[in-house]
């Protein structure tokens, strides 16, 4: 049995902000951009301007941003069906993302992929994914490639608590470990798959990160609503990976504030309790980080408001851009089947 894992959090120390100010500003900006972007997605979806399935990342912002703020531009990531946050955190442009949500030609994938498949190869974003566990092998392969090319690049594989029960996890984690590949397996444990509690379908003592022991890789259990804790953990693990010391498993404990996807009902009426949701709402990563910036004297209330206004405007502009972009023409349908 593995020794028990301690939760990595800086919550007892919220009076301080041990990161440089420009980084703090970037983290806050990215988290709030994700929040406002997802709120806009909710709105356009509800208005019928967007089709398909919209899986919102609201509540989990500190996980994507904490991890990606420890990466270089040319590092890789693989994402999931709940991928909008990962893309924004890695530098994805909200206007091109929004256009993709609506299936427009100016979208990242020229409208061919939609919400679950956005990629930006120039930013190392190898794609969101409609298949649960679908990115695990790819992240491992990207790390292998980086290692073989001697590029120093690392790969981050984001996945959910549900995905850790896919066979692909065992196969990828084992491969990454025996070959000492620079990959960070980042499990975003939001405690539910679609409508089933992780605890009902996952055989672990307490944390899914315990599984790392079986692959001889370090395990980190992190307060996933604490951007500082996530960032610091990621920095340490990225450094280790770049030094050739191999993969790790990071479990970010977090919560999605909305349903599994837009339009699938009120989770608090079915598979979760209001009480549970409320305890997580109290740990909302964005106000938590804002309070720390305030205490550290990096910003005041007025500036927080103007940051929000700027971001809101950027997202509104993205929606306008997407609305104005045309659908791809019919003849594009046969383009890109092959390279």
């Amino acid at each position, binding site marked *: 049995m593995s020794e028990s894992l301690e939760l990595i959090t800086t919550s007892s120390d919220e009076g301080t902000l041990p990161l440089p100010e420009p980084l703090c500003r970037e983290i806050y900006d990215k988290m709030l951009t994700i929040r406002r972007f997802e709120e806009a997605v909710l709105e356009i979806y509800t208005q019928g301007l967007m*089709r*398909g*399935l919209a899986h919102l990342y609201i509540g989990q912002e500190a996980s994507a941003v904490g991890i990606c703020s420890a990466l270089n531009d040319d590092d890789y990531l693989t994402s999931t069906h709940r991928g909008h946050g990962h893309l924004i955190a890695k530098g994805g442009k909200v206007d091109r993302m929004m256009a993709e949500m609506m*299936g*427009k*030609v100016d979208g990242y*994938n020229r*409208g*061919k*992929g*939609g*919400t*679950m*498949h956005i990629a930006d190869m120039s930013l190392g974003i190898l794609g969101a*994914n*409609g*298949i*649960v*566990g*679908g990115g695990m092998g790819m992240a491992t392969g990207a790390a292998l490639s980086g290692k073989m090319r001697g590029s120093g690049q690392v790969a981050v594989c984001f996945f959910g608590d*549900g*995905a850790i*029960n*896919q*066979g692909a996890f065992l196969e990828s984690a084992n491969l990454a470990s025996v070959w000492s590949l620079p990959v960070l397996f980042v499990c975003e444990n939001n405690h539910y*798959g*679609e*409508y*089933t509690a992780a605890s*009902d*379908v*996952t055989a672990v003592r307490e944390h899914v990160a315990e599984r790392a022991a079986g692959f001889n890789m370090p395990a980190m259990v992190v307060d996933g609503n604490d951007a500082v804790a996530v960032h610091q953990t990621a920095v340490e693990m990225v450094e280790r990976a770049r030094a050739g010391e191999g993969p790790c498993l990071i479990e970010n404990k977090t919560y999605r504030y909305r349903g599994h996807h837009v339009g699938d009902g009120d989770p608090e009426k*079915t*598979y979760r309790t209001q009480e549970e949701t409320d305890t997580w709402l109290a740990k909302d990563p964005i106000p938590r980080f804002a309070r720390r910036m305030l205490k550290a004297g990096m910003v005041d209330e007025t500036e927080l408001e103007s940051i929000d206004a700027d971001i809101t405007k950027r997202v509104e502009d993205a929606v306008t851009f997407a609305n104005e972009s*045309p*659908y*791809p*023409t*019919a003849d*594009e*349908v*046969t383009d890109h*089947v092959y390279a």
Partner: protein
Amino acid sequence: MSTPERVITYGEAVREAIAEEMRRDETVFFMGEDVAAAGGVFKVTVGLLDEFGEDRVRDTPISEAGIMGAGVGAALTGMRPIVEIMFGDFITIAMDQIVNQAAKMCYMTGGQAMVPLTIRTTIGAGRSSAAQHSQSLQAWLSHIPGVKVAIPSTPADLKGLLKTSIRDDNPTVIYEDKMMYGLKGPVPDDDDYTIPFGVADIKREGSDVTLVATSSMVHTALKAADMLDKEGIGAEVVDPRTLSPLDMDTIIRSVEKTSRAVVVDEAYQSYGVTGELASRIADEAFDYLDAPVKRVGAMDVPVPFSPGLEPQTIPDEAKLVRTVQGLFHDVTV
């Protein structure tokens, strides 16, 4: 004397078939992702957990290979599992257990073993679900000896075929079109109502052309038949209902009458169900044919997300009508 009928939806047909078979045989059980407490992502299995309890209606981890393997193992050893794979696209993850294990057991063991496993999964595009949630992969398992395949187009066919498949001693797959769960239709009001595999159904009679159509395409073919009627072309719509075994007799008899055939299926056209059916018709009904057998399938492209691109990739009645008109070119021009 005829059995009374009730009108239910395609989705309700699933629920009724499973519930009736679970009442009838206590070795029948049902498992899949989010199927129990939530009643499935398409809400078609709501209520089964309440009636049968957690032992027989199981929410599983997201582990398609593992669930399918567990289904095969339970089926080998006295149970009759029904395994749901939420989207047919995800069946790829469970392929080894179906293709190399379940399908081969009976034969490889010289008839000692049987695998009475029912797999339910979905097919169908049309809701901007993009390339990994929209495929119609029915050809894949139809290719495999040892697996039986049903592809029902109506609530009555779905209910009858699903019940038969649960009672069958072989691995069977039911492909349900996710766009049709709300479709209503009459079903016989009889707990023992079943439909044998390998019996096609003539969904509409006609004397000038045979449209062999599967699943959602049966409805497309019926619409096309109405349009063709106005041009004086009588289309007969034949629904094979099961792809394996396949009722060629009914198809051949229809072609004998009409002398022309078009095959339509929602999957990628190349190397699929339409290819198999067309070649069998060309081969077995050659003497009756006045025109080449034509095929209509989806475009050979991954299903695109954009509402500006997706619709044209799926066969529709206009395309079917044009294809049929082409067969009458010599006569009408």
